[in-house]
């Protein structure tokens, strides 16, 4: 039985270093209180739809923001995005895609599937912190969820 706990941000990122840096960036902006990090797309879907290891979780208890890397093992980011935006229960959860370059082909596809925003993961950590700050402010503090 999965132990329910409050999740504000679901971070789906397979690279542990990138994940750690992202969490640090969130923490620097005081947004890291309830961050859940999952390493692949399949686990993220299990979590969101209360399947497998997460069976019994209350699906209506949605994260307030999903930070989604596009390149993931097993089920890739686009597939996760597609399922989230196709399901009535999760459709309204804001999804921010983390990309390596804004020229990626996947970016267009992400918008087609209904992504809310994206962050290019810059090599310069300080810039990443700034980008996370802006997004966190917008999606968690300013943007009122219905």
């Amino acid at each position, binding site marked *: 039985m999965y132990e329910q706990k409050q999740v504000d941000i679901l971070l789906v990122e397979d690279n542990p270093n990138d994940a750690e840096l992202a969490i640090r960036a969130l923490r620097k902006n005081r947004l890291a209180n309830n961050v859940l990090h999952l390493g692949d797309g399949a686990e993220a879907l299990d979590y969101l739809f209360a399947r497998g290891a997460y069976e019994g979780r209350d699906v209506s208890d949605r994260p307030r923001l999903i930070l989604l890397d596009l390149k993931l093992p097993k089920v890739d980011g686009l597939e996760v995005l597609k399922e989230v935006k196709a399901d009535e229960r999760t459709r309204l959860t804001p999804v921010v895609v983390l990309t390596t370059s804004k*020229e990626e082909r996947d970016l267009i596809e992400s918008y087609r599937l209904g992504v809310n925003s994206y962050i290019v993961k*810059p090599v*310069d*950590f300080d810039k990443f912190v700034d980008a996370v700050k802006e997004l966190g402010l917008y999606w968690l503090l300013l943007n009122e969820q219905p």
Partner: protein
Amino acid sequence: MRIRSLLALTMGASLAMILVSLGSLWYSTDRIWKANKDLSLANDIGDTVLERIMLRDEYYIHREERPKSQWLAKTATLAGQLTRARLDFQGAKDQEILVEMSEVGANINSLFAKLIENTRGMDSDPIARSLAAEYDQTLFSQLNIRASILRDDAARLVELRFGELSFLMSASNWLFGACLAVVVAVVLVNGFLIGRILNAGIGRLKEGTTVIGGGELSYRLATDSGDEISEVALGINRMTESLAGLLTSKANLEESVALRTAELRTSNEELESFAYSVAHDLRAPLRSIDGYSRLLEEELGPALSAEGARILAIIRGGAVKMDDLIGSLLEISRLGRTDLCLSAVDMRSTASDAFALVAGPEVASDFDFRVGNLPDAYVDAPMIERVWANLLSNALKYSVPSPRHSIEVGGRAEDGVSVYYVRDRGVGFDPRYADKLFGMFNRLHGEVEFPGNGVGLAMVKKIVARHGGKVWAEGRLGEGSTFYFSIPRRS
């Protein structure tokens, strides 16, 4: 049989027949002329014979000296005529008649002599006169019989000569007709043969060329008739063979082009996926280098020495620079792959806008920036904006240490291309290295002096090349530089 031989045969046969005709004409004319002469001689003989009869009768009635002497003269004439006839008339019958005429003529001569002799005796006694008169009558009737023989002979002679003449004339006509008939026959037969060969040959050629023209290049025309048509057919066959060869090589060429295109597409796709993975996989470790350096800096806090901070800053700077290079590489590769979206672009306002953008208001006011009248260009607008932005930011960058802050943009239409330039009065460059300016990551100045990754001009070159144009530069150290690019004009 060859058409040329048939034509030659026709000509030869016709010519030969014409020669034969001419020869026979000449020969028969000669013969006819001679026959005519003979006929005339025969007629003369007949006339002489007749005149002599009339003179004899006259003499017989009047017993005068004149008819007698005239008779004798005609006798001499007749003798001459007969002699000539004996020589001229070749026919055996003629000769027979002439012999008879000579004999009868001699007979007549002696009878006439006797008559003359007898006339002298008629003047004596009556008995003798009566005897003489009786003898005179006998002689006269003898003469009359002989003369009529002679007259018949002469008539036969004329008849013979006339027959000869008509025979010759009709023979000559026949010969002529025969020659004409032979010529006509040869012409007709050969004409028919040539017509048949041509007809059949042209039919074959027509059929064959229709089949070949329809694309059946393995078809070959028959070449065994041995005439000129088969030579033409041989030529057409060779032509068809070369055409088939050409088509085969064209097909091979197309095949290899298709193969190359496929290979090129594959390699382009590989390049694209390479670029994608470069972007992804090379950047992740860079992020770690930079991010963890930053974390280390924070962890150590005040414990970090100044030297330690400097080293960490270098590490972070290296990561960011490498990221910049990767970004530029990806961008250049993207420039080569994206399709051009061409439209008519106002180059003057594009250049002015680009300057305002790269300089910013503060720097812009510090520069003497002049734009001439630039010809419009038919180009990809966002790409050409990059060209202007790169060239102008270069001009700005290398003008900074110079006292003259002046940038001039100009252009002109040359044959087939529009040439544009950006001229500055900055630090310039050594013309010996002009060819290195546009190479990727090639720089003529140190990075401390002028920041940059050496990609800007390579990008300019790539964009201009994609438009079918060229780039080049002129400059002198300390005097500034001029960067040119050309864009082909659309007709």
